[in-house]
């Protein structure tokens, strides 16, 4: 029971948990969200480009990624990336990629599929008159996207994009399967070293809960602000 709950083990582990673990988790989340957004937008543009083949490829990629469990994708890339690296650099043997790089590539490729669906909805939510007006003004396709369509799509979809990033933040905990020291990995290492599973896992749960709660509260406020302006 909670009688022999040891708060001190948490206090002692705090620097390790946050400097090592949380830094990894947050860096991975931020970079993966950014990369996923860029690739996702590219995929969405491919799908909406009107070029059959390009749209087909992007659609297949998105459907493929979305029907696989993230854990399996993490394993896939963990083993595949060294071989891709070898192929790209022409090295004689599979190159070793760090844990961080491997998981970053995984999450960018995986999240791109989800971000692309969000951006596609965002782009489609823009009224047809907008790109029509842009081309009437003599803007090229690239300029239309860059100055007219994408800024609005991005803004309309901002709450959904942030919500997806919160999901991503929680999903990064799955790098645990590669024994990487992210926040949960750090908590679990301390838990196993000190035999304090209850304290460490409860603490990890509370930290994840607090961060996600604050973030989703922020999203709700943002949503109502955007709703008023529009």
């Amino acid at each position, binding site marked *: 029971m909670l009688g022999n709950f040891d708060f001190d083990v948490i206090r002692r582990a705090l620097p390790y948990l946050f400097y090592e673990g949380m830094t990894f988790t947050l860096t991975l989340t931020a970079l993966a969200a950014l990369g996923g957004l860029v690739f996702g937008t590219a995929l969405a543009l491919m799908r909406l480009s009107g070029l059959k083949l390009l749209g087909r490829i992007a659609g297949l990629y998105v459907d493929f990624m979305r029907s696989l469990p993230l854990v399996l994708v993490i394993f896939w890339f963990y083993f595949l990336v060294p*071989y891709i690296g070898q192929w790209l650099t022409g090295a004689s043997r599979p190159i070793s990629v760090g844990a961080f790089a491997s998981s970053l590539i995984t999450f960018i490729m995986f999240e791109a599929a989800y971000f692309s669906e969000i951006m596609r909805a965002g782009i489609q939510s823009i009224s047809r008159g907008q790109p029509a007006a842009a081309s009437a003004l003599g803007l090229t396709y690239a300029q239309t996207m860059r100055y007219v369509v994408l800024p609005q799509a991005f803004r309309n979809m901002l709450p959904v994009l942030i919500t997806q990033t919160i999901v991503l933040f929680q999903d990064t905990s799955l790098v645990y399967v590669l024994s990487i020291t992210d926040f949960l990995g750090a908590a679990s290492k301390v838990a196993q070293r000190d035999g304090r599973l209850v304290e460490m896992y409860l603490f990890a749960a509370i930290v994840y809960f607090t961060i996600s709660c604050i973030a989703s509260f922020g999203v709700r406020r943002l949503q109502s602000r955007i709703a008023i302006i529009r």
Partner: protein
Amino acid sequence: MNYNWNWGIFFQPNPMGTGTYLDMLLSGLALTLKTAALAWVIALITGSIVGVMRTLPSKGANWFGFAYVEFFRNMPLLVQLFLWFFVLPELLPKAAGLWLKQLPNAPFWTAAIGVGLFMSARVAVQLQAGIGSLPRGQRMAATALGLTTVQGYRYVLLPMAFRIILPPLTSEFLNTIKNTAVAITIGLLELTGQARSMQEFSFQVFEAFTAATILYLLVNAVVVTAMRFLERWVAIPGYITGK
């Protein structure tokens, strides 16, 4: 690529003595489906109750529904599984904790319940949205006809709401199947877990993961097709998806 491909590996006997490597993967697939099915039943039942609570004209029920959804949505699934698997038995009275720890198939039950409750929050949100999307008049008409609140939900609101949210429920069901893979961390040998152990035994990484990938894609295709039939079958006349 200097990787030794060996697609014949699937027909070689696995070191556990349970047949070939293919049998190993198929038993993993069966466990994935079993876990997902039980989890989905839990998710549907609890999710429906919580979703209804969020729409009831009662402050207390609303608040409970809100707290429930926030609780299960704001923690990673992996952490939730750890809480059920490692933490809960320690927090219970000694006898109950011991019983829980010695339960045969503990990873299976933990995974099914953990994934089920995790998904129930999502089902609840969908159902709330579905009920919310019905015109207000439906609820009022039910009351005007003299139906009680329970009857109103049973005969008027829920039959409509469930049919409206069928497409998002399909993707939540697919998510349930995919999420069972997280249970590899508590030692459940479902499809991803079996692919992983096949890789460890045979060193044929890419064959193992390719097979698992194909099996997941197949399951996906079957579910999507089946749900499309179901959608057509229960479609509401007069709605866009209706006849």
